[in-house]
């Protein structure tokens, strides 16, 4: 248990460091979130930056991003004015820590609207509370802030909608690569340096060599258009089994908004899966070779055990070990979406947000996506460590892996 707590502690520190790193460096990139073909004129730009609290000092902004900024009074000219930090101590009475230079609390106190404790604050502050929108609730309360280029979308919304979209094609691809790659690797190792070994490795290699950028359109062209046209020709024109207008497809492999059926994830899985396949075949081949040459396999053979049992029981775990090491960090990157797949197959997902966040200089989205990727990396590394202990008992019982 202590181990888990320590890892959790490490995770928190990492998240803060990552955020600080991205926060401080993202302003270095030229241009801002509001530059564009029709940029808002200067005085509007000032309002926009005030709306996102970009006119505050960098540390204040970072604090606001992390812990949420509760109150910002309304300046004389209607512009968001000075910041009042409202922090909620455990005893839950309100203390306003910002300096008010002797002004009594007569001004309207602008209260954060949708941050859960906003409602709660109203009960304690007897002043008329102007429900003027305030932006942030802070990461500590699980709010990753408002996207700077999409004015009404929160980073949380992106994740809420994007992540399932991404996982729908990322997970099948990972499984496809794993459940095809590992056996292929074993067969390649078992029949080492034969034609079978060579063919397995080169089949795997196809995916790694042909870039996704080409594999996607190629498969669309071959499967979705030509093959589909062929089925169309057979079933609709020749056999008249199915009445379909010219425009309706038989296989319908391309994801169309209407029916997001599972068949639409066939092509993306093929593309992303084959890209991973090559690597996994090669790694499990190396692992399996290592095991097949070992003495304990020779012992197993001397026990008269059949090959399939030896392969399945004795070679499986050492064979998978290198694959697990490799897949740890890599699957984190894949599970958080691949822009190319989403772009080519017009699939919803997080992949495009990762890229557009940087190109659009959408600072809050950029930080949000970085944290999400980091969380995935940490969680997956943790899973890899667990898998390691399960796979290699020597680690679990303190022995060193010889």
């Amino acid at each position, binding site marked *: 248990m202590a181990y888990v707590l320590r890892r959790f502690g*490490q995770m928190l520190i990492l998240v803060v460091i990552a955020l600080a790193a*991205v926060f401080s460096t993202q302003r270095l990139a030229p241009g801002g979130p509001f530059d564009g073909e029709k940029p808002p004129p200067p005085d509007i730009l000032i309002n926009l930056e005030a709306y996102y609290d970009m006119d505050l000092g960098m540390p204040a902004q970072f604090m606001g991003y992390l812990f949420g900024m509760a109150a910002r009074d309304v300046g004389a000219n209607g512009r968001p004015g000075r910041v009042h930090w409202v922090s909620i101590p455990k005893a839950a009475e309100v203390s306003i820590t910002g300096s008010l230079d002797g002004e009594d609390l007569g001004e309207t106190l602008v209260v954060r609207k949708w941050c859960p404790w906003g409602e709660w604050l109203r009960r304690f502050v007897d002043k008329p509370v102007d429900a003027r929108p305030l932006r942030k609730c802070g990461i500590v309360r699980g709010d990753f802030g408002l996207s700077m280029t999409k004015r009404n979308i929160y980073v949380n919304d992106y994740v809420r909608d994007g992540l399932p979209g991404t996982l729908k094609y990322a997970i099948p691809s990972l499984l496809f690569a794993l459940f095809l790659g590992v056996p292929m690797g074993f067969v390649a190792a078992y029949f080492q340096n034969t034609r079978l070994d060579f063919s397995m490795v080169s089949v795997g290699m196809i995916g*790694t060599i042909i*870039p996704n950028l080409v594999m996607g359109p190629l498969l669309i062209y071959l499967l979705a258009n030509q093959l589909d046209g062929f089925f169309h020709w057979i079933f609709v024109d020749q056999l008249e089994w199915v009445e379909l207008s010219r425009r309706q497809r038989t296989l319908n492999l391309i994801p169309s908004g209407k029916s997001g059926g599972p068949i639409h994830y066939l092509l993306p899985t093929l593309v992303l899966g084959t890209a991973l396949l090559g690597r996994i075949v*090669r790694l499990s081949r190396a692992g399996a070779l290592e095991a097949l040459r070992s003495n304990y396999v020779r012992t197993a053979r001397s026990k008269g055990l059949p090959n399939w049992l030896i392969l399945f029981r004795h070679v499986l775990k050492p064979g998978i070990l290198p694959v697990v090491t490799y897949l740890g*960090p890599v699957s984190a990157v894949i599970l958080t979406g691949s822009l190319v797949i989403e772009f080519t197959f017009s699939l919803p997902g997080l992949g495009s947000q990762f890229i557009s966040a940087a190109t659009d200089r959408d600072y809050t989205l950029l930080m949000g996506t970085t944290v999400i990727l980091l969380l995935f990396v940490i969680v997956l590394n943790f899973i890899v460590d667990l898998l390691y202990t399960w796979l290699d008992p020597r680690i679990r019982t303190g022995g060193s892996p010889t």
Partner: protein
Amino acid sequence: MSLLRPKSTEEALNGAFETVKSRSLTRLAFERFARNKVAVVSSFILVILVLMAIFAPVAEMLTGYAMEFQDRNFYSAKPPNWEARHFFGTDQNGRDILVRVIFGLRISMLVALVAATVALIVGVLYGAISGLVGGWVDVLMMRFLDLLISYPLTLIAVIALAYFGRNIYIVFAIIGLVEWQIMARVVRGQVLSLRNSDFIEAARATGAPTGAIVRRHIIPNVIGIAVVYLTLTIPEVILVESFLGFLGLGVQEPNTSLGVLISEGATRVEHKPWLVFAPGAFLIILLMALNFIGDGLRDAFDPKDR
């Protein structure tokens, strides 16, 4: 006085059998590599590609079209036609694809070279030190890797290009930055398992400094796995370069790379397939050659492989 009269060595060895020639590991590896037919053919192909890349201007003379020359009557991607010596057709801007592919090859191979060396040097050393030293240093180095992998690549690219100008070397540096992380992790895993094997204990016992241990003991043992990963890293690197090109953060017009050519041609595979065939074919040949050479090297250098 021993019961047996010792025979003189010459007499004993009077040509009864020739002694086994002693060969160093590298000579042995070279011989074993030479026997691997596929690897030899691949290295032959690689040499051809390198020569083509170096003597790219020859292709310009051969076809009579400079790389950036826009042939007005072959504008907006015309298919290959032999009379006009556009052997692979022209691209969207009327430029000869064969010539552009060869210049693109030059840059893609440079990318592969730079990224490979960075991945090898930085990755292996980082992994070896992290694995060998262990303790909190290891944890620190690994967590730094987690941070690095989650830092948005696109942001690095934009900032680097904005501050250091748009030349190719910056693009190489950006790509190099990305690829060594996986190598470091893998090498660390390998070193962890090597760390408490007998010869490392022995080396430590003799008081050898960590640097020497890493150089003499760890690196030769890790070379096998490192080469395998190298063959995995190179296709990855070329794809990252094409991805940057796709976003406009990569190589600047008018020069180009295989990755950029492919990403431009990719979406037109249905209507104008020749746009992607030539660069695609070259890239596939290049990567296959590199992969098989990698395999050949790995098998040759793997000490345990009798």
